[in-house]
């Protein structure tokens, strides 16, 4: 209090007491005692002198009584003016709460001698008006301070504490009400305690302050001071009142009686955790029993590593106790999750904010996920309300920002974290270290907020570390743990200090707080708990005086926790989550906004693709055609490599853009797990955003790449392949993102995922020339079939070759040509050779020769069976004729002529088709409608290098025999696959023009793109069920068992 104010107060006191008969001795004593509370001896006398001067205390004795009366009227006007002036001065500096204190002091002053003259009361009335105190409240305060008789004080905001049994008071009230017809109903609240007389509590609603006075003969001690009779005291947070006979009265227990809201929300919380074991076998918690009802703020304290957060997690139902249960209103939080869903709120120690969004957006989308039926205005209103309550309304449009680029302060972040839970008003909240890293002011604000919530009926558990005295006192109860998960104290916070002092026989053990300043030092508790033994040299040893187990033993002796009766009703829930589709929309919008606000991320992601395309395409734009100097697409030898690199780029971009997605959100997911939101919706939102991103990236890549390399008419089809592969890659990324817990692990994994895709894409290494264990001839190896890159590359290569504007005019003919040529030039020869060999050796008895003959016969039979041209062998029964037993000279001659006819037949087809093709070219070139120049078309649309690749032009052995089958090596792109061996047979050779499955034939391009999407879908399923994460977990478990088996040393 400043000097000025004190002076003003002194004057006020003086003016009031001067009225109507002057100062009495009692009044003067009261003023002196008031000064003594705040001032030292010297200043007290100074102010007393001042008071005496203004009140005319000494003069009074000299002057006669006559004079007084004459003067009184004159002074009253002057005094009124003076009072007004003083009050205005006070108004400027004191806050409303302090003004109430002043008013009460003045009333008390007047009441000290019971001289309630009209003038005095009028002045006080004026003061209260100038102080802007509401009439009703003034009346309340006046009667609270001045009336000595309990019966006369009958207000809603009064609480009486006396020895009358509670039931009786209620009953008599009811009775009265019936008899007197509402007029004389007792409005006061009642609380039972075994004391003489009455303790009267007053609540001033407008400023939420509490005062008390005592009327009785007991020695009542408040916060270590003996209470004077009929003196008004401020009842501050955490105060304790001790009565000689009854048990202590605590602030929270008393205040709760004023709270009406509590009657509507009813919560019982009963935790009985006998044991919690960590996965590695260590015990985290033992014998924790907590029982609480509505509207409490419970602190959890303990040395570091004592298991505070563990306890909080178990209480919140995040971790499951090994033995024991946690029940809210009788519903088990672990087994009956669905019954209490939305009841629990959890604020973790970490920031669970979406850094890219603004403060408002963070809350807004959270609210949208919580209240499905609320309209936009309602949600906006709710958000603004919470923001205003938390003092964040000025910051609402600031981006939350990350650890490195903070835009809002730590305290604001913490408050926002709490706000996120607050907005849906869970009945039970768990807050982990809300004050860590905050300034003392911010800490106080945060705890204040929690306190207020608890007063509104929430049950709040807070893990707190090194609280300041003020914060410490705000808790209703304190749960103290010692290393190893042992509970050592459970009860009133200030009691804790005395309890530990008492146990260790310290002096002054009954005083919990400082007598003069009211401070509590919670550090003391831990100093006592962790006190170490001193050795003979005076050095501290590592040994504790009292071990955690011993403390726990004392705890068991001293504390008997009464279980709160389970409330038999559903816990109050305000949560109403939207349907899955709406959730998806909300998630998508939220995520999109957060991505859009991250300019760096956006820029890199959008520029990456075109930049890579420029670099890649520019470098491989091979400029020399045959003899010419200008670039001709047809002669760019790098096209196959470009396709391959495009796939790698798409895979890479897809993986890297998605790999961090779920990891980044993990914290937010943890928070939202209490909302029980749809995992599917969340994934869908991710997928939508990533797919859109992939679509844009690949499109830009394709457009830029194709413009530079002059790839024409392939824009959409290549884009679709790259988009598909990028989407599949997104899905892989999401899978690993959901399974691993750090972004670095995921980025390390990327090469592991990409390189096999590159190796088995079909371009870098020929499928024919792989390790014998993998390699197959005539079909793509199964390992390669599992690589999306191989499907993508095949799709692009075959599509580019087959459907480019040049080739599409001739592909049909060239296919017939190629097939006929192969049969005429190679197949006929090969089969005839086999026939020759069989004929020469079929009567040979040698086993190995017989084996070859058998195999050759089988091949012949198979090929002939599949052959459509059968002129000359129509009547031959292949199954009997082509066996060692059935083979003879006639058959041989028949076959020999057949093969000649076969060759001629296909040669004829070949020649015809060649002519037909030449004719087609001739017609096109000579048709004025088309302006068709074959070479121009070929230069523009056809790529020689790719054609060589898909026709396997460089292969030496054009026909080979592999595992009893004749395999065509040349022209795979013209070679229709063999008949499928069963319905689900999809396997063909690489670059096959068409694929078969389920008895249908499909175009390779469509088929392969479908396969990639199928893979994407499969990865979605594994993502949805978190297959990878779960299998990793079980893998981790196996390891642990092994460790356990080794004996401990």
């Amino acid at each position: 209090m400043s000097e000025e104010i004190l002076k003003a107060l002194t004057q006020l006191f003086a003016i009031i007491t001067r009225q109507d008969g002057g100062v009495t001795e009692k009044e003067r004593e009261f003023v002196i005692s008031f000064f003594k509370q705040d001032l030292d001896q010297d200043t007290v006398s100074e102010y007393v002198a001042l008071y005496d001067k203004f009140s005319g205390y000494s003069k009074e004795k000299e002057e006669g009584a006559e004079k007084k009366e004459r003067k009184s009227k004159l002074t009253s006007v002057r005094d009124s003016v003076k009072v007004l002036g003083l009050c205005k001065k006070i108004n400027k500096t004191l806050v409303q709460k302090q003004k109430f204190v002043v008013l009460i002091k003045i009333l008390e002053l007047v009441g000290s001698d019971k001289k309630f003259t009209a003038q005095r009361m009028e002045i006080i009335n004026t003061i209260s008006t100038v102080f802007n105190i509401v009439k009703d409240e003034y009346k309340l305060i006046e009667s609270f301070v001045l009336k000595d008789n309990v019966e006369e004080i009958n207000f809603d905001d009064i609480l009486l504490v006396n020895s009358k049994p509670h039931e009786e008071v209620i009953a008599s009230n009811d009775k009265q009400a019936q008899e007197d017809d509402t007029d004389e109903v007792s409005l006061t609240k009642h609380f039972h305690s075994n004391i003489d007389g009455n303790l009267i509590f007053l609540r001033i609603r407008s400023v939420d302050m509490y005062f008390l006075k005592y009327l009785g003969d007991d020695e009542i001690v408040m916060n270590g001071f003996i209470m004077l009779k009929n003196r008004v005291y401020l009842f501050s947070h955490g105060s304790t009142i001790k009565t000689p006979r009854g048990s202590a009265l605590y602030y929270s227990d008393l205040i709760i009686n004023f709270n009406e809201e509590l009657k509507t929300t009813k919560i019982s919380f009963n935790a009985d955790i006998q044991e919690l074991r960590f996965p590695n076998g260590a015990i985290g918690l033992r014998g924790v029993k907590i029982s609480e009802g509505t509207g409490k703020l419970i602190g959890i304290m303990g040395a570091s590593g004592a298991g505070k957060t563990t306890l909080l997690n178990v209480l919140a139902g995040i971790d499951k106790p090994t033995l024991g249960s946690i029940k809210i209103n009788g519903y088990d939080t672990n087994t009956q999750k669905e019954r209490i869903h939305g009841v629990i709120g959890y604020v973790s120690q970490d920031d669970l904010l979406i850094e890219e969004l603004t403060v408002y957006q963070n809350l807004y989308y959270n609210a949208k996920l919580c209240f499905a039926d609320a309209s936009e205005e309602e949600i906006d209103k709710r958000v603004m309300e919470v923001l205003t309550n938390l003092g964040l309304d000025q910051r609402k449009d600031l981006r939350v920002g990350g650890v490195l680029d903070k835009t809002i302060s730590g305290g604001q972040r913490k408050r926002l974290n709490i706000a996120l839970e607050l907005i849906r008003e869970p009945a039970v909240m768990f807050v982990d270290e809300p004050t860590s890293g905050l300034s003392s002011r911010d800490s106080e604000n945060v705890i204040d907020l929690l306190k207020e919530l608890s007063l509104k009926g929430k049950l709040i558990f807070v893990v707190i570390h090194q609280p300041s005295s003020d914060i410490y006192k705000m808790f209703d109860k304190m749960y103290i743990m010692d290393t190893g998960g042992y509970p050592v104290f459970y009860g009133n916070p200030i009691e804790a200090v005395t309890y530990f002092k008492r146990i260790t026989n310290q002096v002054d053990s009954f005083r919990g707080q400082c007598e003069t300043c009211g401070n509590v030092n919670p550090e003391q508790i831990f100093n006592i708990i962790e006190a170490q033994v001193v050795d003979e040299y005076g050095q501290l040893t590592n040994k504790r005086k009292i071990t955690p187990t011993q403390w726990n033993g004392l705890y068991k002796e001293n504390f008997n926790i009464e279980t709160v009766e389970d409330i038999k009703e559903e816990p109050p829930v305000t949560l109403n989550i939207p349907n899955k589709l709406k959730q998806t929309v909300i998630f998508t919008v939220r995520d999109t906004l957060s991505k859009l606000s991250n300019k760096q991320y956006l820029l890199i992601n959008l520029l990456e693709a075109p930049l890579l395309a420029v670099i890649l395409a520019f470098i491989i734009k091979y400029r020399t055609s045959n003899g010419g100097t200008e670039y001709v697409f047809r002669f760019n030898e790098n096209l196959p490599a470009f396709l391959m690199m495009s796939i790698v780029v798409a895979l890479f971009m897809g993986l890297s853009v998605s790999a961090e997605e779920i990891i980044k959100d993990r914290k937010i997911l943890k928070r939202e797990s209490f909302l029980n939101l749809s995992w599917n919706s969340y994934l869908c939102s991710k997928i939508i955003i990533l797919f859109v991103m992939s679509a844009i990236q690949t499109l830009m890549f394709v457009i830029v790449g194709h413009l530079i390399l002059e790839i024409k008419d392939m824009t959409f089809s290549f884009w679709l392949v790259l988009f598909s592969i990028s989407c599949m890659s997104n899905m892989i990324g999401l899978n690993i993102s959901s399974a691993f817990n750090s972004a670095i692990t995921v980025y390390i994994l990327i090469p592991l995922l990409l390189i096999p895709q590159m190796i088995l894409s079909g371009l870098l290494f020929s499928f024919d020339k792989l390790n014998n264990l993998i390699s197959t001839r005539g079909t793509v190896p199964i390992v390669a079939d599992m690589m999306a890159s191989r499907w993508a590359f095949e799709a692009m290569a075959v599509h580019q070759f087959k459907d480019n504007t040049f080739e599409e005019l001739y592909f049909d003919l060239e296919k017939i040509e190629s097939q006929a040529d192969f049969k005429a030039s190679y197949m006929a020869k090969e089969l005839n050779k086999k026939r020759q060999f069989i004929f020469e050796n079929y009567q040979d008895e040698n086993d190995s020769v017989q084996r070859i003959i058998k195999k050759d016969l089988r091949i012949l039979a198979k090929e002939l069976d599949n052959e459509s041209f059968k002129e000359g062998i129509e009547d031959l029964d292949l199954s009997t004729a082509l066996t060692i037993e059935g083979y003879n000279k006639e058959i041989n001659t028949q076959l020999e002529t057949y093969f000649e006819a076969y060759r001629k037949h296909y040669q004829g087809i070949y020649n015809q088709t060649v002519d037909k093709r030449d004719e087609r070219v001739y017609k096109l070139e000579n048709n004025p409608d088309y302006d068709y120049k074959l070479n121009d078309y070929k230069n523009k649309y056809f790529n020689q290098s790719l054609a060589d690749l898909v026709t396997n032009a460089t292969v030496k052995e054009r026909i080979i025999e592999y595992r009893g089958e004749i395999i065509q090596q040349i022209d795979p792109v013209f070679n229709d696959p063999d008949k499928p061996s069963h319905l689900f047979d999809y396997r063909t050779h690489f670059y096959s023009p068409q694929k078969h499955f389920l008895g249908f034939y499909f175009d390779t391009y469509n088929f392969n793109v479908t396969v990639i999407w199928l893979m994407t879908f499969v990865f979605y399923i594994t993502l949805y069920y978190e297959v990878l994460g779960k299998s990793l977990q079980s893998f981790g478990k196996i390891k642990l068992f092994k460790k356990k088996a080794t004996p401990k040393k």
Partner: protein
Amino acid sequence: MRTLSFVLIFLVVLSACDSGKKPSIEEITSEEEADSTASETIIDPELIAAILQQIPSPLEISVLLQRSGTKYDGSLLNNPDNTSKYNSNYQKAINLGIYGTDLGYTNIYEQNQDGLEFMSAISTLAEGLSIGQFFELATIGRLATNSKNLDSLLLITTQNFNNINAHLQEQDRSNLSVLLLVGGWLEALHVTCQVSAKDPSNQELIDVIGEQKIILEQLELLLSFYSTKNPNMKDLHESFLRLKTAYDEIEITIIPGEPVSKVVDGVLIIENTDRSEVKITQENVDNITSIVEEIRTKAIN
């Protein structure tokens, strides 16, 4: 707004890729179905074989040129880089013939660097015609080393051609043999005409040009067999008919001589000493040259 402009740019890019009328496969196949009545003429393969045997190797002209002292001129020959232009079998075959003559020409003048380029062009085209096996490096290499020995060179090339012819004949693709031959002959005539145009006083060359009348008649006959089968052949045949008209004014009279027998390396050989006399004017030569150039230009482009 930004997205809108992006979409616009995208549409422009897309539409820019798609200008001019392109033939569609549906259109073409439907047209083909409409006139699939093209008549098939069967040609007696033996007749063709007989005619093919009578035509001398174009290599002889190259030898003649070298002997007459003209200098090597690579610019007269077809560019070996042109192979990529030849897409139809017709083009491949006729240009394979042309390159064959060019290779022979470079061989005789021992221009090995150019020769190598022609070799690679030849193997590319041969590969395209599925007769690559006849032009493997070993065979062509033998041609190169034998450049000094004209007789053996002639023998090898003739043998090789016969082999190719037999192979194609077997595959009913004798039209390609004809084209090979026509190409080779056309190139030889072209080189002779060009050299002659630079050195009009060289009567020997003019006579050679005139003497081609006999060969031309045979080639024209061969082409006529195929002209109904293939529109390209038909065009070629028509241009050969024009060349034939140009040759109509030239008269060749054969002056018979006594056959002379002599012993070479212990083998008795009977030599024909018939001589031919050619009546040809410079105007004829110019006319022929221009038609030959026209046909060749069409063939190599």
